């Protein structure tokens, strides 16, 4: 839209002379495919993808990013076919709905000659993607455990609220347990709270009834953490140095950290903005004089009051 206006202005006023040759050139078309947002994290990803699209297209007039979201794996497979057939894309950025069913469709895009960037969820066959951009689930568990070890002492008790039983959840949990081992901190129990506020609230209520002495909570996720905090406040057990560690980087939590919240003093990043990182890197493949290929694993950064501001996006839904 904006581009077209700029072009129109250039044609009429002949002021922006550089715009005309840019549109005359062959455009670099990059398809971006991801699941339709149905939860807050994905909605944040959608927002960041749209922001990156505007920013990159303004920066490079010859780059055209085409954003498509799909409600299920088979719709995503069709969307990939359309990107090749209709738009004849030069590169694809894809966050696969599921690994197995989308491996072949992505391979077909690859065969059309397009450059492939896979985000977050790997394909089931290695070697298809040129670039892999992802968050670091085991690192998220490790960073959380390290923080716990720094704050707690030998003999302190924690409880863990886990996500939905999946590989992601196992990776986070196993790495956390590995790191906490031998520290003398007791993990009283761990239950699934499904990355969900309501479940976080109920599971924490039950933990509070069951264990009279809890010193900290690893909620693994910011939605769960919000439910946990409500349960702690209800039971009046939010004092005495109690703290909750979440994860992801939800804006409300980051705001709280910026304001010096005692109950959720830090957060561990697993950012939905990784889609923007992938889009940037893919564009850089066409624009940079340096090589872009391989694996780009984001760090699970510890967000503290000192650095929180740079991870706060007030406009994002997440």
């Amino acid at each position, binding site marked *: 839209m904006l581009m077209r206006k700029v072009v129109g202005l250039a044609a009429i006023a002949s002021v922006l002379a550089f715009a005309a040759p840019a549109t005359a050139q062959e455009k670099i078309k990059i398809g971006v495919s991801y699941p339709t947002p149905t939860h807050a994290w994905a909605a944040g990803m959608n927002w960041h993808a749209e922001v990156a699209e505007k920013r990159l297209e303004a920066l490079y007039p010859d780059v055209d990013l085409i954003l498509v979201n799909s409600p299920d794996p088979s719709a995503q497979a069709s969307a990939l076919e359309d990107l090749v057939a209709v738009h004849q894309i030069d590169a694809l950025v894809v966050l696969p709905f599921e690994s197995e069913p989308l491996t072949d469709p992505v391979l077909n895009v690859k065969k059309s000659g397009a450059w492939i960037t896979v985000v977050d969820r790997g394909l089931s066959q290695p070697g298809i993607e040129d670039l892999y951009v992802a968050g670091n689930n085991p690192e998220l568990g490790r960073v959380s455990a390290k923080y716990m070890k720094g704050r707690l002492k030998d003999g302190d008790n924690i409880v863990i609220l886990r996500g939905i039983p999946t590989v992601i959840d196992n990776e986070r949990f196993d790495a956390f347990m590995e790191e906490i081992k031998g520290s003398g901190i007791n993990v009283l129990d761990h239950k699934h709270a499904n990355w969900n506020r309501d479940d976080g609230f109920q599971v924490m209520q039950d933990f509070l009834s*069951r264990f009279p002495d809890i010193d900290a909570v690893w909620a693994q996720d910011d939605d769960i953490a919000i439910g946990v905090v409500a349960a702690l406040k209800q039971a009046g057990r939010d004092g005495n140095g109690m703290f909750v560690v979440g994860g992801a980087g939800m804006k409300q939590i980051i705001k709280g950290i910026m304001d010096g919240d005692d109950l959720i003093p830090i957060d561990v990043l697993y950012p939905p903005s990784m889609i923007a990182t992938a889009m940037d890197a893919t564009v850089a493949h066409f624009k940079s004089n340096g090589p872009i290929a391989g694996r780009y694993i984001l760090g699970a950064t510890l967000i503290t009051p000192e650095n929180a501001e740079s991870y706060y996006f007030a406009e994002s*839904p997440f």
Partner: protein
Amino acid sequence: MISAPERHARKPSRRYALDLKTLGPALALLLLCVIGFLLNPAFVSEGNLTNLLTRSAFIGIIAVGATFVITAGGIDLSVGSMAAAISGVMIIVMNNVVETIGTGVATVLLGCGLAIVLGIGAGWINGALTTKGKIEAFIVTLGTMGIYRSLVTYFADGGTLALNFDIRGTYRPVYYDSFLGLPFPVWVFIGVAICGWLLLSRTAFGRYCTAIGSNESVARYSAINVDAVKTLTYVIQGLCVSFATIIYVPRLGSASASTGVLWELEAIAAVIIGGTVLKGGYGRIGGTILGALILTTIGNILNFTDMISNYLNGTMQGLIIIVAVLLQRSDWRLGKSRKT
């Protein structure tokens, strides 16, 4: 199996007063509580029991409405999504009137009033489409389920809708405060249960529901206004969803696409565990209440033990539900005093 005439027998014989059909849910709940206590004495602590009752209130209140719908031979799959959509609209409207009305009681009352209007409206839509539109209830409510679920996702822009912090301060006591030792949601639950019980077993309307569920044609020939009664059952269901929403919103002050997921199935399960017949014609509010308590207790007990793998929670829930229904459905009788 229960044969139709037996179910509709107006004068149950005294000999069956101790029949497991009616006692089954109560026994199952008692058994669960004993297990809970043996696993961890903290199970019967005042705090946990209060949590349990408060938590049952959501599903329980919705299940009271579902008892009417199911007794009259219908089904409503849209309740969970409806609760999510109503919470979403409530939050948006309350946030938007802060400028004009402020963050006081008036805003909260406006939100609650709106919830009730929306609930009745949504219920009426389900009912009218079923009766006047002559579409099966399963399909109508499957459709509205999808509509409401995607509406809340749309309102929240895929994310989470959060209630204004100051309004939350005003509204919070509705969930967290108590009266005579019982939290407000439990009082609402008790109120809805008593009204539901009176309506189903002590009024002509209740008998019409049962008659329609048993045999719709016969009910029609008996000069019952079948369409009106059936529509009204969906309206009652919608109203119950509003009440559940009104006590749900102050808990976390937020609504998202994951609000109320699978509530419809939990409500239906509570109704069936309680002894109401899924294909209609027989309903028991008392049983429904016990059913809702049983469902919540299962989840609570599973959180109180680490003996069972987390991955098997669903298995335990499924087993207990089936056993509870088996207890009250099969012809278990104390003594073989009856010939078939």
